[in-house]
């Protein structure tokens, strides 16, 4: 595990992280670590604080406690780049914006209504090609399927290549094939660029297949470890039912 070709990050350590809203405790004393080159899956019932944890890491929610980013030589890493793919992107589907417009708008300051050069367009195409969806470059954003939109968001989240990639799994609008393809691409990114991937997921079968580590969250870390180990624990079975792990895993 000494290949750190694109990222300097080695380890993310979360220490005593708590998030409180006005009335409730959303996260209570979370202690957790995950590594680069690994896909860590966050699971848990609705309201267990999964999205809150992502938001805290993204800096969108105030928290107490510490989040360390460590380089492989053990030194603290500053200015970490985080890529983020939101659970869903709600927007007005009738808006006249193409995939190319959307991608260019996040990349340059040059206004997209002036159009772009052949070179820029080719670059976008190459990036989409890595996600197997170069054919949608000129489509209207509102015409994309859920899976296609998700892959466009993933393409945008890896430019610049992040140290940590955070994924909020889409809960609706993406079919099983689309979801599987999405995971394949995430795995490809993890292997190729050796980045740390943290994802919130609801699909236990896919987690079993793709996750290196599973964290069961219920306001705090209830269980963590390999998928198979976590799926055997009492806490897991209480959350997802006694057969959830097995039924979905072994099919």
């Amino acid at each position, binding site marked *: 595990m000494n290949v750190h070709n694109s990222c300097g990050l080695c380890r993310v350590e979360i220490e005593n992280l708590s998030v409180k809203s006005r009335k409730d405790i959303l996260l209570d004393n979370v202690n957790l670590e995950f590594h680069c080159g690994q896909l860590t899956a966050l699971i848990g019932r609705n309201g267990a604080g999964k999205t809150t944890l992502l938001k805290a890491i993204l800096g969108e929610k105030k928290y107490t406690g510490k989040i360390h980013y460590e380089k492989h030589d053990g030194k603290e890493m500053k200015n970490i780049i985080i890529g983020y793919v*939101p659970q869903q992107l709600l927007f*007005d589907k009738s808006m*006249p*914006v*193409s995939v190319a*417009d*959307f991608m260019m708008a996040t990349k340059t300051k040059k206004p*997209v*209504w002036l159009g772009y050069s052949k070179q820029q367009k080719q670059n976008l195409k190459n990036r989409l090609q890595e996600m197997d969806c170069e054919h949608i470059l000129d489509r209207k954003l509102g015409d994309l399927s859920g899976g296609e939109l998700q892959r466009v968001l993933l393409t945008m989240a890896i430019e610049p290549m992040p140290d940590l990639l955070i994924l909020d799994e889409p809960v609706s609008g993406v079919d099983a094939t689309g979801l599987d393809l999405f995971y394949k691409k995430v795995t490809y990114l993890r292997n190729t660029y050796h980045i740390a991937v943290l994802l919130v997921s609801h699909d236990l079968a896919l987690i079993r297949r793709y996750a290196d580590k599973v964290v069961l969250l219920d306001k705090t870390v209830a269980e963590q470890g390999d998928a198979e180990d976590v799926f055997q624990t009492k806490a897991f079975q209480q959350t997802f039912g006694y057969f959830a792990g097995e039924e979905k895993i072994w099919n």
Partner: protein
Amino acid sequence: MELIYELLEKIPFSFLQYDFMKNALLAVLFLAPLFALLGTMAVNNNMAFFSDALGHSALTGIGIGAVLGLREPLLCMIAFGIFLSIAITKVKCADRLSSDSIISVFSSTAMALGIVILSQQGGFAKYSYYLIGDILTITQKDLYLIIITLIICYIVWILLYNDLLLVSINRSFAVSRGINAVFTENVFVILVAITVMISIKWLGILTINSLLILPAAAARNISRNAKSYHIITMFIAWIACLGGLLFSYEWGTSAGASIVLIAAVIFFITFFISANSAI
């Protein structure tokens, strides 16, 4: 300016022999792209109702100007327009009422306040020309004002467009990309407020909103990306403005309303095109 006038006289249209028609023609030539640019984003942000409220609030601006004894209430109108736009944007973010209720509350308050002030001792009639507007009153000084506003608008559109676009697609996504959404939104609404207030004397409180919304709404039916959206909106705005001006000259009608009618016809045409071709 003299040169442009001379050039215009070479165009074989009988109405161009009048200086006020030359001014009006030049004015709509520059107002069209200004409203087209702002309109593309106003429609993207579902702000049709917002700009309507803004137009109505001009009455309060005029009222404040009258109370202060100013001969030219434009600055008061702009100041009040900006205040109202920012207030609406701010309250909308608080998200406690649906945004159309909020805008409606602001709109009615501002309009009622304006009417109350202006109708003191039954004097509203002398302000009623603001309701419909008169494009033939445009002077050379006004033209310069329009051109400067257009230039400012283009500058903002070059510096901030991508941010504006991302905020209009999805606000929290834009914020997660490091965009200062509050700033971009405020710059945009201030620009709309200034443009609307400057033009209201010529285009009319009752029709100005349509001029902002209709060309962009029509273009939206048939465009697929930001570039075509801008080009088509601008074209439609030009056609509507020039057509409306000619129409109003020939028939002696209000220019603002004539422009809006033509824009509305274009909207229905593009609507049927899109309905039949499933763009």
